[in-house]
């Protein structure tokens, strides 16, 4: 059998007395067998069902339906089609990746699974599919397990359930595909037999280099739109204002001391183990008193960094300064987002926020009923947030990816007003480094430093 298919993918499984290979190899195995055995070749593997889109059918008669694609979106879709419907499309946030994916789904018309990073995005895909294609998709994730020919899920749920549902889909769409190549999550691609695959991202690169594996997990990059191009055409101009939050002397001393402890500990470990990371420290902290000490120092340091009270004071200043304008606040955590909400009595959107409240809050923000909207970092990627000219980031991670995507969202083009992004960071702390790192990406060319 293995020689017949001409593939090394096959392994003999003594436990069940059968040849076994990964579902991802299905297309190539099928092609090899077909080439070898036609005309007696017969494939009785159940094929993914065809899907018809109520809204698209209707629209064909009535005119309208799917949004008209812009030239670069059409180009991207054509490139994917030409690549055998297997490949990645790289487009900056705010340039309509979702529309390209919906158009791809519409023309493939086959059972499709959409994989999104978090459940907010999963629900958003559900809404977008319903709106554009008139299809009420199934949901796997968020304690739901409702599989339909078209289903939306998260990377974590896809990893857990793909071995049970991977045969039913003909097209896989990986939104924010840089989440896929992790050691476990990649199994979401490996355990599915789907022949058509589409990966979407603004920034596929990973610091561990694993994005190279996307070439076989999904397919090669078929289209890439540079960030610069997008900025000029679809995104607005913006200023970045960094507001340092000063620590008092005692806090600063404690902070420095804690930093030293953590730094020394990691450095000493790295002498023996060059790749030693924070995760390793956590694992070790159970037994090693030094590791435990370092871990405690780290948490203390973090709590100083979070310094909710001081940040809330700065936030009040920003609210005063931009009274009458719509302001988006990105908090570093659920807890911080709730702090802000309880202090200023402003609405939040958190990962668990349900559909009705989300709509009420987003609508209220869009119509100006609410002037402030607080989100935890879950909103970082791809969620449809109404336009705002002022955004505040209080705490966050140092990655170009998040920086770009945050910008994309805040600075969606509307009129000619320039947008402002405030970053509230503790002075002389790691957060300043993060901010510095963030600015290194080409998105941040001018940054104004201002004390409030």
């Amino acid at each position: 059998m293995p020689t017949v298919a001409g593939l090394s993918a096959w392994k003999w499984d003594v436990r069940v007395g059968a040849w076994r290979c990964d579902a991802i190899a299905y297309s190539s195995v099928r092609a090899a067998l077909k080439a070898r055995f036609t005309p007696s070749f017969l494939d009785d593997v159940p094929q993914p069902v065809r899907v018809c889109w109520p809204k698209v059918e209707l629209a064909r008669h009535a005119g309208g339906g799917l949004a008209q694609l812009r030239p670069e979106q059409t180009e991207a879709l054509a490139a994917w089609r030409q690549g055998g419907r297997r490949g990645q499309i790289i487009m900056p946030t705010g340039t309509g990746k979702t529309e390209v994916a919906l158009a791809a789904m519409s023309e493939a018309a086959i059972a499709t699974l959409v994989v999104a990073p978090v459940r907010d995005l999963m629900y958003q895909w559900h809404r977008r599919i319903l709106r554009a294609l008139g299809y009420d998709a199934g949901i796997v994730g968020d304690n739901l397990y409702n599989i339909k020919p078209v289903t939306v899920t998260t990377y974590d749920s896809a990893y857990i359930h793909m071995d049970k549902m991977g045969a039913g889909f003909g097209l896989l769409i990986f939104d924010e595909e840089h989440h896929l190549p992790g050691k476990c999550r990649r199994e979401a691609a490996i355990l599915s037999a789907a022949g058509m695959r589409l990966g979407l991202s603004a920034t596929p690169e990973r610091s561990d280099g694993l994005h190279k594996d996307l070439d076989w997990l999904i397919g090669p990059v078929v289209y890439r739109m540079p960030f610069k191009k997008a900025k000029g055409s679809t995104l607005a101009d913006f200023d970045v204002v960094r507001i340092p939050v000063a620590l008092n002397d005692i806090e600063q001393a404690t902070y420095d001391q804690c930093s030293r402890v953590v730094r020394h500990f990691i450095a000493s470990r790295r002498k023996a183990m060059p790749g030693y990371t924070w995760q390793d420290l956590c694992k070790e902290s159970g037994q090693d008193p030094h590791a435990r000490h370092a871990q405690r120092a780290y948490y203390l340091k973090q709590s100083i960094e979070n310094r909710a009270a001081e940040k809330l004071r700065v936030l009040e200043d920003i609210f005063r300064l931009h009274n009458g304008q719509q302001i988006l606040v990105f908090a570093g955590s659920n807890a911080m987002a709730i702090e802000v909400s309880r202090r200023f009595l402003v609405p939040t959107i958190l990962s668990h926020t349900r559909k009705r409240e989300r709509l009420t809050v987003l609508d209220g923000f869009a119509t100006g009923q609410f002037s402030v909207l607080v989100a935890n970092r879950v909103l970082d990627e791809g969620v449809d947030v109404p336009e705002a000219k002022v955004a505040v980031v209080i705490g966050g991670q140092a990655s170009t990816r998040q920086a770009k995507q945050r910008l994309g969202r805040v600075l969606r083009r509307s009129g000619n007003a320039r947008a402002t992004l405030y970053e509230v960071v503790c002075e002389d702390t790691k957060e300043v480094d993060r901010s510095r790192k963030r600015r290194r990406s080409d998105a941040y060319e001018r940054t104004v430093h201002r004390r409030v």
Partner: protein
Amino acid sequence: MLTSEQSIVEFKAGRAIPDRLTQKTHRHYTGYAEKMLCIYRNGIGTQRRCLHRQIETLFAGEPSCPIRRIQAFCKLLDDAGVFATDPSGEAAKLRVKVFSRAASLHPLVQQPDRLFEHGQQQVKAQLADELGTTWQRIEQALYMDVTAFQQLEGFEGYSDPAALLSRYNVAQLQACLYQAESMTVAATSDFKTILRYAKLARLLHEIERLGPSRYRIIFSGPASVLRESRRYGVNFAKFLPALLACKGWKMTAIIQTPWGGSATLDISDRDGFTSHLPSPQEFDSGLEENFAAKFGPERDGWQLVREGDILHDHQRTFVPDFTFRHHDGTEAFLEIVGFWTPEYLAHRRQVLRQFRRPGMLMAVPEKSLREKTGVTENILVYKTAIRIGPLMEALETLRTKAGS
């Protein structure tokens, strides 16, 4: 079960050692366990985050207690409690109500002045007034749908401090198994329980006979043959309590280390872990028990072993009720078919047909024999109890055949 973030494993000389609190090393933890149970028992109506803070404070004087251990305790205590949920979305409704009223007063400032006259204290008191309650009440209900803000409604708890600590030890063992690629069990008894629970945990097995009533069983998942995978780690963890309830076993698991290497986790029934599951019953029925008592441990050179062997064909297994081993090495099996439903009997017949062999004897109740045609010399018909005489005859016939 814990999450991976609460797992504490020490890797030393190629071995994985999950965190364990014993009387010898952590005697004083019994006191902590008692206090922790107290906090939760007295904590009805308290928010989850406050309960967790109390537990953290409790361990403030214990400098060597890692944060993960504290978090693991919180998880195990939470698991034994019931928290108020907000299924009808009351919190969301309250938020919309409060935030809508506050929207026109934005921004709420700390110190009102001529430009911004809405102080947060005044506005909050005023809002509470309008809604006919106190601000404290509103604040408590405002984010009741967020896990950290949920209130404890009931606490079933653990029977005593020792039970909490023993559950902690098993939970750490399970969490260590989340990172396991494969698990090998060397077993000498309770085969039925081991195989049944492994199947319930959706594991595949490879069985190797090491000797009389000694087996090596390697457990893994479907994709394990293609690549090393941790995806069955949770299955191993789910299976573990059943194994801990059994006797006469050793278990070795291959654990992936955070550094990309691997280590082994070794435990056995002698390590003193306590399962929350009951030990497997010695006999499935009174019929079997009576028979074993009547036969005795040995008779005419035949030794009697209960569930002493595993017959297997790929993923189908069959553990006959009794194995007979003669001094000369002859082996025979006896399966007692009880009084059951027709569906069960049909299933049993199929299994027995698959594993039919010369040494396989079956005891069948007279009632369930509809036609006599199927009766051969290997079938013993019984009415209420199995008679020893015909059985010994059948065994001797087998031995003569094997010898000739």
